[in-house]
């Protein structure tokens, strides 16, 4: 299992879910596992250059109390999701690919995306690279 990559389909674009994906990716990278991240829909939208560092909200279940606790963690120095991903990319092999269908639907061009994104691919390439590794859908 440890030789197989961890594969994350990142569909969600809220900060908490992006952070959860970044945490899963960096943990796997620290263990020396390759990580493939496939960006779809709102997960892809969050990687637009002008959006990455902006406030992207939280999942609805956060509520007011959850939002206050997340804000408190950020104020205490917890790094944002994109910083977690950048550090993880320096540490290990993390390949982030945009789903070409989502690029079409959301009218996103490759140059609109943050440099964290390594390229664009279709679902077949994603499955090929995923091998027998786990696939997480976030």
């Amino acid at each position, binding site marked *: 299992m440890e030789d197989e990559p961890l594969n994350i389909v990142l569909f969600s674009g809220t900060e908490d879910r992006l952070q959860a994906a970044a*945490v899963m990716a960096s*943990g796997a*990278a*620290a*263990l*020396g596992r390759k990580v493939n991240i496939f960006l779809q829909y709102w997960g892809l939208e969050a990687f637009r250059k002008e959006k990455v560092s902006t406030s992207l909200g939280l999942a609805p279940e956060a509520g007011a109390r959850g939002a206050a606790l997340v804000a408190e963690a950020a104020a205490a120095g917890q790094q944002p999701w994109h910083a977690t991903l950048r*550090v*993880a990319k*320096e*540490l290990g092999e993390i390949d982030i690919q945009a789903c070409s269908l989502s690029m079409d639907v959301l009218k996103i061009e490759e140059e609109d995306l943050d440099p964290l994104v390594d390229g664009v691919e279709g679902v077949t390439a994603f499955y090929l690279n995923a091998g027998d590794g786990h696939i997480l859908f976030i």
Partner: protein
Amino acid sequence: MSSEQIAQVVDAKGLSCPMPIVKTAQAVKGLASGQLLEVLATDPGSTKDFAAWAKSTGNELVEQTVEGGVYRFVLRKK
């Protein structure tokens, strides 16, 4: 206590999961085989995470102690 010399110390106090492990993995990359790394952390998941990381990567967890809410780990690079 280990009488061997610690080659590097990583202060990960105040950092939340997974940053203590990420910083440890980064630091270990720069060490030579057999060298010791000391890590200080306050993340309550650290005890299980460091044991799991050592087991999975083959680096040795030589010592682990906790004092005043600070976890201290000494690892030997494989």
